[in-house]
């Protein structure tokens, strides 16, 4: 038995109770890993991590409220901890978002507990681990045909801002914003801004 002070302290957040408790039980069987918290959603994970300051947070990507990457983004500012994201199905663009948020490990849920433990050890030691399957998916994402400016316009517009508000927020003329919108609709072959926003969100562009 390893001394408690040298154990890797792990927080697990997953909204699926069965998976969370099974994974926690399996990880506790590893001599060098101590599961110090089990959380069922993102908010709880943020609260627990700020209180307990774990070495590694193992976060499910798909959680109600805050998702795994959002938890990492929020905690990255306040707590020194490493993040591992697990997911059943990585949506397009999510790996890029996770890497930008400083996530150190990313793996599919199908990996067995032994592999998860190995990744936790590696990440706790300061390295990064990206699962080949996740990386392969991310590399075959469809490229976004929109420019950064067009994405800004679409992002603001999809939050309900009017053309005038979008123009003001981006310091553009309303006419320029309208031209951007028209270009977006043409490039995506859709009829309305709403459709364009839905399409862009599905593909992880905004």
């Amino acid at each position, binding site marked *: 038995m390893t001394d408690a002070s040298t154990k890797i302290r792990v927080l697990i957040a997953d909204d699926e109770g069965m998976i969370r408790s099974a994974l926690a039980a399996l990880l506790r069987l590893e001599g060098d890993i101590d599961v110090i918290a089990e959380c069922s959603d993102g908010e709880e994970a943020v609260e627990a991590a700020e209180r307990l300051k774990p070495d590694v947070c193992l976060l499910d990507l798909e959680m109600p409220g805050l998702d795994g990457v959002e938890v990492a983004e929020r905690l990255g500012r306040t707590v020194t901890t490493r993040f591992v994201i697990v997911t059943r199905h990585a949506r397009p663009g999510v*790996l*890029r*978002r996770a*890497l*930008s948020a400083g996530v*150190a490990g990313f793996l599919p849920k*199908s990996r*067995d507990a032994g*592999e998860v433990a*190995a*990744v936790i050890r*590696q990440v706790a*030691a*300061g*390295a*990064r*681990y*990206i699962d*080949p*399957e996740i*990386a*392969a*998916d*991310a*590399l*075959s*994402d*469809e*490229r976004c*045909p929109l420019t950064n400016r067009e994405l800004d316009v679409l992002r603001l517009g999809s939050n309900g801002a*009017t*053309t005038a508000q979008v123009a003001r927020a981006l310091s553009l003329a*309303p*006419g320029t914003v*309208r*031209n951007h*919108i*028209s270009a977006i*609709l*043409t*490039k*995506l*072959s859709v*009829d*309305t*801004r709403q459709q364009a926003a839905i399409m862009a969100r599905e593909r992880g562009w905004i």
Partner: protein
Amino acid sequence: MSGTYSGGVTTQIRGSVAREPRSLPVRGMASGVRGAWWYTVSAIVFFELVVVLTWTGTLLQGGVPIVAAGAVAVGGALWCVSTLPLLSAYRHRTGDPATVQWRSVLVPIVIAVGYGVLAFALSGSWLLLVVPAAQSVQLLDWPRAVRTRMVLAVTALLACLWVIDANGVVSASSGSANGYLATGFLSAALPLMTVLSLWWWDVLIALDRARVSEARLAATQERLSLATDVHDLQGHHLQVVALQLELTERLLQGDDHSAALEQLQAARVSVDEARQGTRDLATRFRSVPLRDELANARDLLRAAGIAAETVVDSNADDAPASVFGPVIRETTTNVLRHGGGRHTTLRLARSGDLWRYEITNDTDAAVDTPGSHQVIPGRERTGLDGLARRAKEVGGTLEIVAGEKDFTVIVTVPVSEVSTR
């Protein structure tokens, strides 16, 4: 389809299913109809210019002073130019009334009205008074029913004015209504011709949208058949797992622990096979052009805080994706995983009759502690060996250059050897 893997050997379908590009022609429309748009615009503007020229000609024939006829010609040219913003607004209309730019619409309309008044003052022709404004108004984005009624009403009005003009000012000044036949007809027909041209343009757009929808529908149908395949595959594996667990239960009841353990391990293998098979089904149509794949790799590396550059030939999409796709994936994953380096350069270019892919990253000795990236020992090495085998199969090579401060993987494949993508 389901026969391919109903035997449970999921590895079979991995290689045998042809990788087809996903059909989502997101960028298809812009270039496809641009030509048709310029054709429409030039036809409308040309028609307007012809009308202005016939007016000028008729006025000259009718003995109107050259200065007045010139003013009608110059004003007409200005009016023709003023219809361009209207046409542009028509093309870029979003169908949302709130987005109509009233200011930019108002100016051309005012020009048209002003020109009509000027031409009427100079010639006394009622047609010249009404036609410019009537034409410009047609170019606004009206609902279809309104537009049809409006153009019919306007055409009828213009026909009446034509008759009035023919019997009034023109016949009085020139003495012959015959010369006015062509002018009157062209003027009265202008709005109708314009509306027909715009209608034609709308039809083209609708056809183009239909083409895109058709492609999407095909993709949806593909997805439906995929759902059936997934169902068959999952059903088969779940049944196998259920049987294996039942057997385990019996063996445990009979205290045969080692045999029970064996069955449990077999069940885990079945689960993994089902998972892998499902993934293979879900990703079998996922393939993007190599240039996109390299751009994605660059974005990912940059998101991970690595300064990444790509140097890619413009025709790099012609390189064999079956070889380079896995190479790009594996090597990018390796660089991401190490997390030690700060710079990475990816190159894909054709030199002579060789395609050459090269990825270089600097290695950071401080972070690269021994064993730190051996989560699954030897996995990376095995990955590169697999790639080398694949390259060799198509007559290519894989070379690893481990320098003191950098690490490079170079893959070359002869151009002629590879016929399949």
